[in-house]
């Protein structure tokens, strides 16, 4: 039993990201309203961003800014003392991507709404057939 508890507690960041991801995926698949689907999509992408950020963390690590650089009896740089900055940088890009995707998708939703006067998928389908 303690093993299972360990799996949940010690790796809670992974569980959180999985739960968030599934919430997003569920909304994308099961919701009927286009905006709700888009929100689900955003949650889905955010979950992956959380995942990357959480793997960069080190217990007791500090910000990856080097003190006393360039000579000056500098303390030696131990990578183990710093949090990994790379995932953060990657996620900055991923955030830009997800914002852009969200923007395009919202524009598409607006375009759909102007055409069909609704954002419910089933009604769009009905009105499409009528045209």
């Amino acid at each position, binding site marked *: 039993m303690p093993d299972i508890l360990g799996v949940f507690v010690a790796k809670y960041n992974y569980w959180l990201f999985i739960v968030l991801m599934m919430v997003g*995926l569920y909304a*994308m698949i099961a919701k009927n309203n*286009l905006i709700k*689907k888009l929100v689900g*999509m955003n949650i*889905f*992408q955010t979950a*992956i961003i959380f*995942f*990357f950020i959480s*793997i960069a963390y080190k217990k007791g690590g500090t910000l990856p800014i080097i003190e006393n650089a360039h000579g000056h009896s500098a303390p030696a740089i131990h990578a183990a003392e710093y949090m990994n900055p*790379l*995932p953060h940088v*990657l996620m900055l*890009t*991923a955030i830009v*991507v997800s914002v*852009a*995707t969200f923007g*395009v*998708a919202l*524009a*598409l*939703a607006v*375009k*759909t709404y102007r*055409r069909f006067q609704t954002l419910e998928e089933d009604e*769009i389908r009905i009105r*499409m057939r009528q*045209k």
Partner: protein
Amino acid sequence: MSFQYPALIIIIPVLAAVFCSALMWGNRRLVYPLCVLALTVTALSTFVLLAEVIQFGPVDYRMAGWPPPWGIQMRIDLLNGLVLCIVSVIALVNLIASFRSVEQELAEKTDTFYILYLLFVTGLLGVVITGDLFNLYVLLEVTSLAAYAQIAMGDPDRSPVASLNYVFLGVIGASFYLLGVGYLYIKTGSLNMMDIASILPSLYSSLAVFTAFVFCMVGVWAKMALFPLHVWLPNAYAYAPTASNRIMAPLMTKVMVYVMIRLMFSVFGMDYVFEELALSEHIVLLASIAILAGAVLALAQKDLKKMLTYIIVSEIGYLVGGAWLGNSAALTGTVLHVLNDALMTFCLFLAVGNMSYKLKNLHFDNLQGLFSRMPLTMAGFVLAGVSIVGIPPTCGFFSKWFLLSGALEAGNYVFLLALVFSSLINAVLFFRIFEICFFEPMHSGEDHAHEHSRSVLSEAPASMLLPLLLVAAGLLAVGLYSGMIVDHVVAPFVSGVVA
């Protein structure tokens, strides 16, 4: 002076896109010539690059001079050298061929469209050229975003919804891929493809690496529309503007197949994918199902564009199956089929674009008498159709031959049967169209005057016809010279990765 072509290939179209958007406030007439110029230079650069790779071996380009595991590396070997040429040439030819149809369909939005077009091409080229997994994700999203926006400029009723569906599946695909990259990064601490490939062998037994592989594969499959994940493709491509379905249909899926081959053979490696996992048979079965499902669904369509989109779904099955058979004949066939299928699909969609320039819709009933009305367009269409079916002098035959012999070598008869059966269905599909266009009598009786106007020659403008005929001739040329292409480009790559 060092060798800068790899960087130029990306930078030129991106800068051209920026300049074009600046020109929106200035002289709008310069936008189109600038696009043509940019893509011409890009196409020339890709050929110089491929020649370099054939002569001196893989080119290794370091962005801003940073050495590989830290900086972004571009690595061009024969495989992506070839795919780069395909992408840039098709993009250029399509830009020229689609000038009139963009004017007809998009009226005052042409400049916006050309900017999106350039960004789309940049993204594709970037995906192909990069040697960095995360960079690949970003460029993949650049491509997809440009694609979503372009698709939504098509049919006013259907295209926004079709594009939204594409967004949903595209985001799921890209996010899965990103997640896979994250798992790989946890295990290896690197994002560079070659670096990861050198670290991975010691981690083959790791469950996290397996998860990474599965996530990457499923993500890429969603983007390339492998059968159960294909639902976004037919509508998105059928309702997109002519100029963009002409470029997306041949390139988007093929570039994703390239990414899959790159991941399987250059990043994870043959040993892992085929020895360690032993999933090959199941995936080939899935691909066979995809081939058959695509073919059968194509058979059920009543609209020419829709039918062709399902043929793409079926072709994806060929490529995935070929790659997963995992022997050198099948891989040769797959790489060759990436080239051939891109050309064949391009030719088909060029012809279809010419038809839709003249006809309101491409419902089968509407196609009667097309041979007499658009003889040259139909000639191109017939060549492309014959090539998809796989009749010898055209290029489609040769890659199918390699795929078939690969399937025989692997002893995978399901895939073999699927290939043969789908070729038969393709024959039925195309000869049905030929029959409608050639033999079927036009509506007789009540509208006699109307009938007369239908049989009058009304060919598409020369700027649309010439590219089509050029590409159709290219189908024959690539078919006749396929031995040379295999010897100089495909075989050296295949023998490099397949032990």
